[in-house]
C-alpha cells in the first residue's frame, strides 16, 4: 500500500510530509529525554531486520497463497511507539530510494499511513489496553490480531483519502473504499497472525525482550491528545497555506468534494497556467498559437462541465502531438549523444 508520487498532488504530499515530520520530531523528543543509548543501534538493526523479514513468504493455512509481514505493529511492541515510528520511517525511506517503492513526495503519506496509525493509534489504544492485565497467550493473540487489523484498516483508509484529495484518479469514494478495505482486511489478518506468532515465540524464549519493551523501557505513556491536537493544527495550517499557493487548481480538494458530496465549488482555471498565459500574451511568442483562447473557451460556463478542460481544439492537439514527438525524439538523441561522447572519451583516454 505504498503510495506513488504519480497519484498525489503537491498539496496533499506537502501536508502529509509536515504531519509526519511533526510526529517524528515529537518521537525524537520523547526518546531523547529518556534515551538509553543502546536504543539507537537496536533501532537500526531492528529496522534492517523488518526490512529483510518483509521478504519472507508466509504460507497462509488452508489457502494456496502466501502473505508478508509489514512490521509496524511488531516494531512498536518491541521498541515502543516512538522508536517504532522512527524505525518504520527509515525503512520506508530506504524502500523509496532504492526500490522506488513509494514515492519521495508521497513519503510523508506512507510514513503516516504505515507508521502513525500502527504506532500511535493501534498500539496504545488497542494492544496496550488488552495487554494491561498481563501476558497470556490468548490475550496476546487477540491484542496482536486486533491492533494489526485496525492499524492496517486505518492506513488503507488514509490511502483512500489522500488519493481522493489529490484528485488524480476518477475512482469514486465508495468504489475505492470497497476496493481497499477488504484487501487490507486480509492483509491485516496475516499481519496479525505473523506478529502474534513472533511475539509468542520470543515471549517463550526470551520474555525479557518483550517485558523490557512494554514496562521498563516503555518510554512513558503516550499523550494521544497532545499528539492529535498538534497534528490537526499543523496539518490545517500547512494544508491551508499550500492550498492557497496552489489556489484554484481544479483537481484536489474541491474536485473530490464535488465528486463525493455532489457539491460543485470549482473555480475556473489553473492559476499557474493563467499566469503563463499572461506572460505569453505579453511576450507574444508565436501569436497564432491558440493557448489563451483555448483556455478561456474551456472555462466552465455551465454546471455540466466538471473541469476546466485545457485546449481541445484540433489545431492545438495536432501541434501538441507533433511537438511531443519532437520533444521525445530530441530527448533520445541527447541521451544517445551523451553516451557516445562518453564512450569516445573513454576510448581515447585508454
Amino acid at each position, binding site marked *: 500500500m505504498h503510495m506513488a508520487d504519480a497519484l498525489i498532488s*503537491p498539496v496533499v504530499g506537502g501536508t502529509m510530509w509536515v504531519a509526519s515530520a511533526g510526529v517524528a520530531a515529537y518521537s525524537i523528543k520523547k526518546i531523547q529525554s529518556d534515551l538509553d543509548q543502546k536504543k539507537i543501534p537496536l533501532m537500526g538493526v531492528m529496522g534492517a531486520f523488518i526490512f529483510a523479514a518483509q521478504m519472507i513468504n508466509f504460507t497462509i493455512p488452508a489457502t494456496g497463497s502466501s502473505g508478508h509481514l509489514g512490521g509496524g505493529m511488531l516494531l512498536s511492541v518491541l521498541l515502543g511507539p516512538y522508536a517504532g515510528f522512527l524505525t518504520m520511517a527509515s525503512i520506508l525511506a530506504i524502500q523509496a530510494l532504492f526500490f522506488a517503492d513509494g514515492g519521495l513526495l508521497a513519503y510523508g503519506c506512507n510514513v503516516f499511513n504505515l507508521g502513525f496509525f500502527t504506532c500511535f493509534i493501534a498500539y496504545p489504544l488497542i494492544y496496550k489496553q488488552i495487554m494491561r492485565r498481563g501476558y497470556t497467550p490468548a490475550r496476546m493473540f487477540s491484542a496482536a490480531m486486533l491492533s494489526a487489523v485496525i492499524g492496517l484498516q486505518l492506513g488503507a483508509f488514509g490511502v483512500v483519502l489522500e488519493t481522493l484529495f489529490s484528485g488524480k484518479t476518477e475512482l469514486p469514494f465508495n468504489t475505492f473504499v470497497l476496493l481497499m478495505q477488504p484487501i487490507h482486511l486480509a492483509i491485516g489478518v496475516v499481519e496479525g497472525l505473523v506478529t502474534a506468532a513472533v511475539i509468542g515465540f520470543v515471549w517463550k524464549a526470551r520474555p525479557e525482550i518483550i517485558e523490557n519493551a512494554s514496562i521498563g523501557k516503555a518510554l512513558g505513556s503516550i499523550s494521544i491528545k497532545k499528539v492529535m491536537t498538534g497534528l490537526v493544527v499543523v496539518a490545517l495550517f500547512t494544508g491551508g497555506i499550500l492550498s492557497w499557493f496552489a489556489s484554484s487548481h481544479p483537481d484536489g480538494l474541491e474536485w473530490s468534494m464535488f465528486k463525493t458530496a455532489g457539491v460543485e465549488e470549482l473555480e475556473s482555471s489553473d492559476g499557474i497556467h493563467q499566469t503563463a498565459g499572461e506572460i505569453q500574451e505579453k511576450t507574444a511568442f508565436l501569436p497564432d498559437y491558440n493557448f489563451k483562447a483555448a483556455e478561456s473557451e474551456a472555462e466552465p460556463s455551465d454546471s455540466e462541465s466538471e473541469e476546466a478542460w485545457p485546449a481541445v481544439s484540433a489545431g492545438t492537439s495536432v501541434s501538441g502531438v507533433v511537438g511531443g514527438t519532437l520533444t521525445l525524439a530530441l530527448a533520445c538523441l541527447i541521451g544517445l549523444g551523451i553516451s557516445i561522447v562518453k564512450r569516445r572519451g573513454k576510448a581515447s583516454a585508454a
Partner: protein
Amino acid sequence: MAGIIQSLYEIRFLDELSEKRTVIHNIHPLAKLLTTLIYIVAVVSFEKYEVSGLLPLIFYPVIIIGLAEIPLLPILKRLLLVVPFALGIGAFNPVFDHRIVFTAGWFTLTGGWVSFFSIVIKSILTVLAALTVIATTGMNRISFALRLLFVPRVLVLQLLLTYRYISVLMEEVARVLRAYHMRAPLHKGVRYNAWGSLAGNLLIRTFERAQNVYQAMVLRGFTGEYKTGGAPKIIITDLLYLTVWTLFFAAARLFDIPALIGSLVTGVVK
C-alpha cells in the same frame, strides 16, 4: 528466497553506481537532493489531463542518466516492476471518465485515457528521479545532505544504521530460508507452524547482534555522532546546477513547450 537475493543485488548495484566519479556524482549531495525534490513537485503539480506539457521534463533523467553513466537496462527493469502499482489505480480512469475530448474519424479519445496517460508519464518521471538520485549520490552522502537540512541526528543515524545492516540481515534471512527450504523442499512459503520459530529466532539473534554492535561502537569511541568522512563544500557549480535545473523545470511547468514547438513546426509546414 530469489526475491531476497535479487533485492540484495539491487541495493549493492545502486551502491556501486553511487561510487563512480562523474560530473553528476561530483555535484554536492544537497544540490542533487533539492533538485530531485523540486523536480518531483514540478512533475506532480501538473493537472490531471496534462500530457504534452510533461514531456520536456524527460530531459532531466535522460541527461542525468547519460552524464552519470548509469546503465539504462537495470533502471528500466526496476521501472517496469514499480510503475504497474500506480497504473492499477490509474487504470480506473478510462472506466469512469467517458467524456470525449478528441475525435478523428473512427478514433475517439476520452478524458479517462488522457488522465491515465498523464499518470503513466508522471509515474515514469518520478520513479526515474528517485532512482537516479540514489544511483548518483549514495546513502552516506544523502544522509550528509539531510543533516545539512537540519534533519535530527538521531533520525539520520538510525537511517544509516538500518541501511548498513540491511545487507547483513538479508543475507541471514536468505540463509535461514535456504535451510528451511532444503528441509521442506515442496513448500512454497514458510508453513504456519514454523512462523513463530523462524521469524522469532531471527529476531532474537537480531537483538543480540544489536547489543554486540552497540558494544563495538562504544569501544571504538561512539559518542552519538556518526562520522561519514569528508564533508564536501558547496561550490558555484552546485549552485548553478540547482539554479539551471530549477529554471528549466519552471519553464516546462509554465509553458507547454511541445505545443510551442509543434505550433512552430506545423505553422512552418503550412
